């Protein structure tokens, strides 16, 4: 699935456009309000000023001031007129005098005979001596101011928006490029080229982090694939030998010249080889099952010590027959832990089986159960036989690994792999060590993962 590259910029542009329009509307409205407040307070202030002025300095002085104001010109949009008691204009602007001033308060009126219609806001303020001061504000001046504020704000917003859009497009192109490079790597992997790696630059931004973790994952996958291939090769090899021997036995059994006895013997041999093949397959199945963790539903709280002692009891004649002696050490009280009984029995059995096969005659096999606190237990199976060289201790836990020394004895090389898988299912691990002399295998159980 590919992202359509234009979808995100288009959405972003739409959102940005809406934001700009909203912004302009808000600026316009706020500007209008600010201007209105400003003009209203200015109008009140000038009216009060002129009323005071008329009282203190006299009406003629006011008339003189108003005329001067009219001559100099009104920058703030306010114009004034002074009328006598008959309504005749004494000083100020003609146009203001021509307006139909209200008796009280502010009112918006149109200038007579104006085209286009020119609106004024007017107030008639009575003064002493029957005079009237008319204050008028030219509303078109207000509109011009509002338009100027709006133009300025709009310009600022548009510049910001364009800048952001340009940055967005640039960033988007960069992101797409970087993501594409990683996607391309993933496609090559999917196509079967496991050596493909995501580009990682030394400057180390998030994409490089992503690429680096992806490369780590790929390295792990490649390693696992190689491991799988090795296991597959090993299975093929380990199954081919018994199958070849089985075929040979069957050929002998089918020989018309063979005696009844040798025929039965050959069939018996074929049977034995079939059992070996089945045992290998079953062991692989059990390991896979334990590793997948599906067995967890069958885990229950059990007395691990009792279980281990039972298996030791099962193996004790075999250990005796191998010329070895068995020592069991366990606490006298139950060692409780969550465990998969069937798998754990098999794991302990495999460890004891290994001791019987590899520790040699005269060895002492020690089975020990230790209580490691609530939910924790450790099972140790130790012998004082020849042991395993330190450099192979890790490797023998892998599937199908059989050391040169044991090539000649029967075995699938899966025993310890199953014990390791069992330990993992039980939230612990299998630790192999040197018993000086001999091998010690410690199977740790813990409730941690269950």
């Amino acid at each position, binding site marked *: 699935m590919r992202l359509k590259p234009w979808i995100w910029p288009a959405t972003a542009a739409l959102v940005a456009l809406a934001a700009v329009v909203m912004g302009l509307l808000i600026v316009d409205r706020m500007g209008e309000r600010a201007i209105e407040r400003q003009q209203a307070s200015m109008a009140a202030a000038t009216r009060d000023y002129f009323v005071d002025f008329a009282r203190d300095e006299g009406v003629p002085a006011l008339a003189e001031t108003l005329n001067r104001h009219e001559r100099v010109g009104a920058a703030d949009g306010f114009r004034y007129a002074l009328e006598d008691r008959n309504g005749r204009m004494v000083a100020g602007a003609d146009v203001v005098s021509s307006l139909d001033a209200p008796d009280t308060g502010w009112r918006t009126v149109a200038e007579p005979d104006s085209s286009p219609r020119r609106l004024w806001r007017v107030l008639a303020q009575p003064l002493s001596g029957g005079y009237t001061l008319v204050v008028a504000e030219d509303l078109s001046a207000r509109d011009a101011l509002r338009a100027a504020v709006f133009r300025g704000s709009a310009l600022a917003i548009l510049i910001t928006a364009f800048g952001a859009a340009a940055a967005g497009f640039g960033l988007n192109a960069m992101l797409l490029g970087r993501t594409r490079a990683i996607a391309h790597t993933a496609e090559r992997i999917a196509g079967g080229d496991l050596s493909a790696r995501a580009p990682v630059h030394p400057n180390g931004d998030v994409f490089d982090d992503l690429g680096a973790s992806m490369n780590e994952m790929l390295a792990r996958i490649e390693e696992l694939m190689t491991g799988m291939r090795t296991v597959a090769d090993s299975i093929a090899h380990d199954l081919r030998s018994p199958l070849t021997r089985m075929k040979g036995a069957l050929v002998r059994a089918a020989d018309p010249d063979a005696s009844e006895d040798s025929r039965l013997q050959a069939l018996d041999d074929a049977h034995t080889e079939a*059992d070996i093949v*089945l*045992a290998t397959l*079953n*062991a692989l*199945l*059990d390991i896979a*099952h*334990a590793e997948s963790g*599906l*067995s967890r*539903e*069958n885990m229950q709280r059990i007395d691990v010590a009792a279980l281990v002692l*039972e*298996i030791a*009891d*099962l*193996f*004790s*004649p*075999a250990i*005796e*027959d191998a010329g070895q002696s068995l020592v069991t050490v366990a606490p006298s009280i139950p060692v409780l832990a969550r465990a*998969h*009984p*069937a*798998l754990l*029995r*098999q794991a302990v*059995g495999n460890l004891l*089986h290994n001791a019987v096969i590899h520790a040699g005659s005269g060895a002492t096999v020690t089975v020990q159960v230790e209580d490691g606190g609530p939910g924790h237990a450790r099972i140790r199976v130790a012998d004082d036989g020849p042991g395993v060289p330190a450099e192979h201790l890790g490797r023998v836990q892998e599937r199908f690994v059989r050391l040169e020394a044991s090539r000649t004895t029967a075995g699938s090389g899966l025993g310890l792999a199953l014990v390791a898988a069992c330990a993992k299912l039980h939230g612990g691990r299998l630790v192999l060590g040197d018993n000086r002399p001999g091998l010690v295998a410690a199977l740790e159980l813990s409730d941690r993962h269950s």
Partner: protein
Amino acid sequence: MGAKILVVEDDADAAETLLNGLRQEGYTVEHVADGRDGLYLASSADFDAVILDRMLPGMDGLAVVKALRAADVHTPLLILSALGQLDERVRGLRAGGDDYLAKPFAFSELSARLAAMLRRPATRQEVTAMACGDLEMDLLTRRVVRAGRRLDLLPREFKLLEHLLRHKDRVVTRTMMLEELWDYRFDPHTSLIDTHISRLRKKIDDGFDTPLLHTVRGSGYRLSDRP
């Protein structure tokens, strides 16, 4: 014997081998290849035992077992399965099966288990003493005597002999003993049973004229005063 057995198995070859073997042993056998038919037959007709494959067309084997038990049909039931032993066995027994056998198996193994299953109800009653020829076992005092002579057995040897006495005159396979006495199911280690048997044999047969513990080639062991 003449017991009536129902075999529910969809693999034609496996079914044929099974049917021939069972008929040779004197059983009356009926066969169906489908889970639904198996459930219908097992709940309507009167069988002494049912042998049921775990994976069946129409209806899953475990579902058949559960449905039968839910319908109060308590015919002894043996489940066959090609799936692993570790968990499938527990699952099968939990669903209501009486025994479980992983494929592939030797016919002798199946035969021994079927025989044990068919006579199970009879052994349900409390037994306090058992005997085979001149060998006697008292379960209360835990004494074993042969021809008036007291035999000194280890607990595990006593356990093994008790099991063999309960299945007197019948073949008990190594895996059956491993499973029932040690709860251990791991085919490559079945020879462990031989080490136990040889010790028991030394104690109960050495120095006596007639051997009681017989090895049955290819299957297991049998305790009997008849050769």
